[in-house]
């Protein structure tokens, strides 16, 4: 296709967007993971401190330094003076681990022996040395937007970086991290196995056994797809936690059978339960799709060859579904490995690596180690993926175009009933979990006071009569629904822009076909495989102070949330749009061109209408993600721009259950309403166009 200036502008725009907001953050995490920390020598530490302090205004700098020095505690004073002496090449007879009075005497003696001008010189340096030794954290906190986050973190810890695999080695060596990594592996293996089995059983029940109510079962099982974060884990707590309706209300208080403080769902079992239900939708969709595309004639051929139900399952259905089962397992495995929400909420006492990463970022800010841990999380999943690619020959499972339903393969009544029972129980469990959260949103204090209230929605404390709670005043500004409003703003900004950017990207890559389009296409789809935690950390890393310029900092803004969510989900619209473009031959545009349409007219009148559905799907997906995502934005929210999903997480981890439930319920209502509206709009548009 002929490319005019407008086309090149579009190409530049798309390439810049993808490069800056997808490739750069991911690359930054990759690079950071190899930045191995080295303890700085004391003289290096002083030099670095001086450099950092250059970002502080001049007068302010001196004032703070001398203030710190004047208010220094005795032990800090001794430490500082001894270090200053030693750095100046003066030997002090006491060592750092001697008693302070011994050190003090030795330091005084050394000072006294010095010539006056030399002594004055050293003493002039004392405030700086003091700051380098004891005030680095304070200095760093003031520089949050002026210096790259990783440099700040290194400065806090008194470290410098060299490139190497030290961080990865540390994950293996460090007892705590190693345990967390092994826990994550055990958890992911268990959850992925169970969810794959459950998803297969459900897909088989719906596709093959054709159980009654299949559509309803499928819809309910897919519900976690649009649910607010950690909703399932949260609901499990409400039922089986220390104040859970079942464990505390029924078994402990009413029946006196157990002590809910020790008998509850916290731990491995709780995480697995939450993950299995939460991961069911993606696993189900993959397997259902494969079973639906499987040629029914294969099963019929087996039956007419004399095969029993079990034979068909063993020789045909399962081998044919194997690649999909593997894919579902890998997806569930990776999502479980990188999930920190559920383990933080119900996993108390069962540390996993993703949770450690969260702590590293929020707490100690050890970026490089966190980055390495993040990428380590992907390792096993990548290995499984490569293994599956080797085992399954794509051509062998390609059904071709003609696919018949396997009506001649009849599932025995007993198995059909068992599958129906499984489907109904799954749907019932999911329904109950969602209803429990909704119920607790209208409850004064779950587990304690079950009267009806709207307080959680209105943002007033429901338990004012209970003075201990009323006075705590913890996080009251986050009580109402204002964060849902922020989430809605982000979603409303990101969704339409994202849908449009996706279409521009598809059009640019697949129709303008610029050089390097396959690389750009690859970059555009990266967020589909890189879990949110990496994407979030990458954003924090890159946009804290891009190129060392605090003026460019995006962290703490609404924009970074919009961008992160937009680019993190762009791939949905791109894949959908690409599907549409591939189905409609490029010939349509050529035809329009021969009829005299310009490039823009072509795009506007031919391509855009075709891509309406893709746009809607891409935008809807971004909208839902903005309302419900946790893993990437949790690192990017700020006090001013706080998203509801992040608050739900922290409030469910604390015990602000009512407030978390009210937000969850509102988000659920908003998302479901949006999906319904999108569906109706699409149908209306369809009807309008086909009349």
């Amino acid at each position, binding site marked *: 296709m002929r490319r005019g200036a407008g086309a090149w502008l579009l190409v530049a725009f798309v390439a810049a967007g993808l490069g800056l907001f997808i490739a750069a953050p991911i690359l930054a995490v990759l690079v950071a993971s190899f930045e191995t920390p080295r303890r700085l020598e004391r003289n290096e530490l002083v030099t670095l401190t001086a450099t950092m302090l250059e970002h502080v205004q001049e007068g302010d700098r001196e004032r703070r330094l001398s203030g710190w020095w004047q208010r220094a505690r005795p032990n800090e004073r001794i430490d500082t003076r001894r270090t200053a002496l030693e750095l100046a090449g003066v030997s002090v007879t006491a060592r750092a681990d001697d008693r302070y009075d011994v050190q003090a005497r030795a330091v005084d003696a050394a000072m006294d022996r010095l010539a006056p001008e030399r002594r004055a010189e050293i003493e002039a340096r004392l405030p700086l040395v003091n700051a380098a030794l004891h005030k680095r954290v304070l200095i760093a906190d003031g520089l949050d937007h002026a210096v790259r986050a990783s440099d700040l973190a290194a400065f806090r810890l008194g470290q410098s970086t060299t490139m190497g695999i030290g961080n990865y080695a540390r994950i293996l060596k460090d007892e705590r991290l190693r345990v967390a990594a092994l826990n994550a592996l055990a958890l992911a293996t268990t959850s992925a196995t169970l969810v794959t089995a459950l998803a297969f059983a459900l897909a088989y029940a719906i596709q093959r056994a054709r159980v009654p109510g299949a559509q309803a079962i499928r819809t309910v099982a897919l519900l976690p797809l649009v649910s607010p974060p950690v909703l399932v884990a949260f609901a499990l707590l409400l039922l089986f936690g220390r104040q859970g309706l079942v464990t505390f209300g029924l078994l402990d208080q009413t029946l006196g059978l157990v002590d809910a403080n020790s008998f509850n769902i916290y731990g491995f079992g709780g995480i697995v339960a939450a993950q299995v239900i939460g991961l069911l939708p993606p696993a189900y969709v993959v397997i259902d799709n494969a079973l639906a595309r499987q040629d029914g*004639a*294969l099963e019929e051929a087996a039956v*007419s*060859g*004399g*095969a029993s139900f079990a034979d068909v399952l063993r020789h045909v259905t399962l081998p*044919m579904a194997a690649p999909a089962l593997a894919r579902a397992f890998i997806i569930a495995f990776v999502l479980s490995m990188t999930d920190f929400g559920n383990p933080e909420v119900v996993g108390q006492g069962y540390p996993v690596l993703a949770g450690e990463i969260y702590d590293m970022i929020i707490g100690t800010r050890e970026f490089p180690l966190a980055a390495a841990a993040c990428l380590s999380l992907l390792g096993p999943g990548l290995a499984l993926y490569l293994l599956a690619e080797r085992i399954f020959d794509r*051509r*062998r499972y390609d059904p071709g175009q003609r696919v018949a339903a396997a009506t001649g393969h009849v599932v025995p009544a007993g198995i059909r009933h068992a599958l129906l029972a499984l489907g109904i129980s799954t749907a019932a469990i999911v329904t109950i979990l969602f209803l429990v959260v909704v119920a607790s949103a209208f409850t004064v204090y779950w587990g304690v006071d079950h009267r009806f209230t709207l307080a959680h929605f209105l943002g007033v404390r429901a338990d004012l009569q209970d003075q201990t709670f009323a006075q705590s005043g913890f996080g009251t500004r986050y009580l109402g629904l204002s964060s849902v409003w922020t989430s809605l703003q982000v979603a409303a900004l990101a969704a339409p822009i994202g849908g449009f950017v996706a279409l521009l990207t598809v059009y640019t890559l697949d129709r303008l076909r610029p050089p390097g389009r396959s690389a750009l296409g690859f970059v555009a789809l990266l967020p589909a495989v890189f879990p949110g935690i990496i994407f979030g950390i990458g954003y924090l890393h890159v946009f804290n102070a891009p190129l060392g310029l605090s003026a460019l900092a995006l962290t703490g803004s609404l924009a970074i949330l919009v961008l992160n969510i937009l680019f993190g989900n762009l791939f949905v619209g791109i894949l959908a749009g690409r599907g549409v473009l591939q189905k409609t031959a490029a010939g349509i545009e050529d035809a329009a061109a021969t009829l005299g349409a310009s490039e823009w007219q072509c795009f506007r009148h031919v391509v855009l209408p075709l891509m309406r559905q893709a746009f809607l799907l891409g935008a809807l997906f971004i909208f839902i993600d903005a309302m419900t995502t946790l893993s990437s934005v949790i690192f990017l929210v700020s006090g001013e721009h706080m998203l509801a999903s992040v608050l739900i997480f922290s409030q469910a981890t604390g015990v602000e259950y009512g407030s978390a439930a009210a937000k969850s319920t509102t988000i659920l209502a908003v998302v479901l309403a949006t999906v319904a509206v999108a569906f109706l709009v699409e149908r209306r548009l369809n009807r309008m166009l086909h009349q």
Partner: protein
Amino acid sequence: MGVDRRAGADTLRMSSAPVHLRCAGFGKRFGDVTAVDRVDLEVTRGAFVVLLGASGCGKTTLLRMIAGLVEPDTGSLTLDGMDLTRVPAAARNFGFVFQAYALFPTKTVADNIAFPLDIRGTGADERRARVSELAELTQIGDLLRRFPHELSGGQQQRVALARALAARPSLLLLDEPLSALDARIRLRLRKELHDLVRRVGVTAIYVTHDQEEALELADRIVVMDRGRIVQDDTPEGVYLRPASRHVASFVGRATLAGGIVGASGSVRLAHGDELTGLRHDLSPGRACAVAIRPEFVGLRSPAGAPYAATIVRRMFMGPHMRVLLDGPFGLALEAELDLKRWAALGLDVGDRVGVDIASQDLVVIADPTT
């Protein structure tokens, strides 16, 4: 439209063979669609029966009911007098060849062929022997280790046939087994398949919508229309004595002319002309249709010919010339004549030509409307 059973032709070959398979009152509805409508069908041992009909007439459904893959709403199925109606497909021991072959993509050719044997727990020696016997029979001996996606369409078709025959089925069912192949291979495989089924001696029911295929393969052709059997006869019977307008136009080429039987047995066509010398046993006053096939139409110079027509088009068909005529009787007739004869006539499009019609060969079909 009743079933026309030309017993005379049938008995020529098969009267001595006992009835092997019998469907009685077989019927199947899918919602509002009656796919198969109370069909009675008898198949004698060793016969090669072809179910022929237009797309959607219920052939596949009937075949799948016989196989046990579709449960009939009404009727029964017996094999050698044994009632199989409620016997599941897996226990019937019928071989089924699917339209798209349905080979197991995860198994090699050998394992595909041996699948029915493995299901029955056949011993390793017997398994090996049977597989190589079938491979030789279907000429795929050198493909046994391959996977289905590594085979051509024709090769896949052979494997499907070998697999269907592996467990020595009492009945072989084939649903348009050649329709996925291109024309040239289809012709070759049609012949091979015919020979092979004959050699094995298995009773076969073969579904197709290709009348040429049916004429070549069948001992008996069962023509279906809208879920019913409209004719059940030998290939010659179906071609020369079609039971209805539908059969006449579906099998072979024919121009149909409506008319009414006159007092002397002649037929007065709608256009007004009267045809005499026709062979039929319809009573006077009966509405009927006369089927005129191209080979019954002769062309000659216009002088002294019984009928006249104008040449509208000519189509070179290789060994012969197909000539489209305007008239006689206001019909658009077709004639076929060999190239020498055409050259000798020295005619071309737009010329008038004399037409001969061999009246005694024409088929007179009673119209069901009266």
